[in-house]
């Protein structure tokens, strides 16, 4: 499998800075990895705060910068941040649903020096797209993709795959080709945040996955020189964990809308870690010296079977968040690994996914909607409240 990423990286610098500038989002995707209690967080950072973060990040050695969220276009000062990013020498990427991107804004981004734009599509069919994002935005996305081309951006299309759309991979790829995408990321849902809550309805079966991979491989040959296609398998179907973030505090630094610094998108929900805020500390201290960024750095924290495993230098014990969500202890081996004594938690989930497919020949959108939990402020506040009460 081909994979995007950093080649030959050896130095311990936050080469990749992700700025989650706003948790506000016009979509309500059921597979969003954002924290489930996002609506209870403090105020968004000011423009000045973000400019300071960008400067400090660049001084620390960050090269790739992602503007994400929520929906980053919800920030009306994004043009200012984009221009400063280019001036500082970042290679910057806008990760957007496309909602809020019009010609005036994209022209300003181009002028300011934004390097590329990644547009996420929920699916290639209007019905599925609108259902999964809970809005009617599909036509808009097609328009946005054309704007991206018009302003001479390399087009990166991202489609999050899961049980309810994975059978549409052929149509999704055909759409990407029509839109002249240069890169297509077919990223299977990772089960954190809202996706974790909805996991049992979103995890595809092994059969679905194999069909989708086969279609993707065929399409790769067909589109070889025009389109680069990445297919990210859900790690539940692996027997070794992903080298999550290339290790804790190794290359990746995420700053949330309210200024909390994280070593990955979803680490905030891990208990006992006091993640520092960029409102109180500079990035250099946060990255190199803060207790939170050093907690799972290297391998001294590891327990068995990771501690004595020769593969720990390859996968760093997998994902701390997944270990916590599934086993209750972030220092456990990622249960995706079949050396983990708790690997059965993963195979159980996979078996349930196969059983659901047998039970219903086709996923029924209407029926599924009764049970899926959409990412919105009301649900988020309710979940935040429930988390505060020990009995919940």
């Amino acid at each position, binding site marked *: 499998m081909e994979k*995007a*990423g*950093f*080649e*030959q*990286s050896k*130095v311990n*610098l936050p*080469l990749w800075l992700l700025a989650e500038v706003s948790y506000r989002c016009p979509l309500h995707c059921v597979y969003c990895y954002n924290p489930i209690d996002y609506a209870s967080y403090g105020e968004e950072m000011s423009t000045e705060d973000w400019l300071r973060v960008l400067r400090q990040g660049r*001084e*620390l*050695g960050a*090269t*790739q910068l992602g503007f994400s969220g929520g929906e980053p276009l919800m920030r009306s000062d994004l043009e200012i941040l984009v221009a400063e990013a280019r001036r500082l*020498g970042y*290679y910057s*990427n806008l990760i957007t649903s496309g909602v809020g991107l019009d010609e005036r804004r994209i022209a300003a981004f181009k002028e300011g020096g934004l*390097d*590329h734009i*990644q547009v996420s599509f929920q699916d290639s069919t209007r019905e599925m797209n609108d259902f999964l994002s809970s809005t009617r935005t599909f036509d808009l996305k097609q328009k946005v993709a054309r704007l991206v081309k018009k302003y001479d951006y*390399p087009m*990166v299309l991202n489609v999050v795959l899961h049980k309810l759309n994975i059978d549409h991979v052929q149509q999704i790829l055909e759409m990407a080709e029509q839109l002249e995408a*240069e*890169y297509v990321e077919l990223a299977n849902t990772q089960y954190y945040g809202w996706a974790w809550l909805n996991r049992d309805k979103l995890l595809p079966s092994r059969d679905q996955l194999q069909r989708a991979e086969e279609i993707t491989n065929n399409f790769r040959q067909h589109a070889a020189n025009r389109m680069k296609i990445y297919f990210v398998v859900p790690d539940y179907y692996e027997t070794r964990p992903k080298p999550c973030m290339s290790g804790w505090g190794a290359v990746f630094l995420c700053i949330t809308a309210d200024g909390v610094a994280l070593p990955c998108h979803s680490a905030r929900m891990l208990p006992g870690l006091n993640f520092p805020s960029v409102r109180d500390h500079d990035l250099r201290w946060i990255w190199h010296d803060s207790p939170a960024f050093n907690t799972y750095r290297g391998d001294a924290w590891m327990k068995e079977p990771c501690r004595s495993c020769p593969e720990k230098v390859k996968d760093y014990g997998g994902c701390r968040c997944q270990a916590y969500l599934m086993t209750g202890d972030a220092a456990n081996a990622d249960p995706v690994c079949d050396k983990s004594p708790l690997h059965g938690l993963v195979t159980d989930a996979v078996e349930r996914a196969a059983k659901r497919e047998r039970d219903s020949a086709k996923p029924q959108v209407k029926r599924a909607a009764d049970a899926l939990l959409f990412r919105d402020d009301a649900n988020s506040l309710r979940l935040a409240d429930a988390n505060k009460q020990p009995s919940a």
Partner: protein
Amino acid sequence: MPLNDDTIFEIAHHYRFQWEPAQQLHVLLYPEGMVQLPGSSGEILKRVNGAARVGEIVADLERAFPGADLRGDVIEFLENAHGKGWIRTKQG
């Protein structure tokens, strides 16, 4: 591809080549990734500017690093870089 002394290369569209002070090396940035180009690889790519011919790049490097026969290494690197899509031949 046929590469000769008159071939002119430029950095590929949507790629950016720059010096990284924090890493003390040149890098090539592109969507979703980065190639680190320490030492001679950075020195070669620094001279790929859409104007210099391959022969001129070799001569310039041999002036900058006297005593070394660099031609073979430079050609090999440029062919490799072209194969990976980092650079493209300048048209016209």
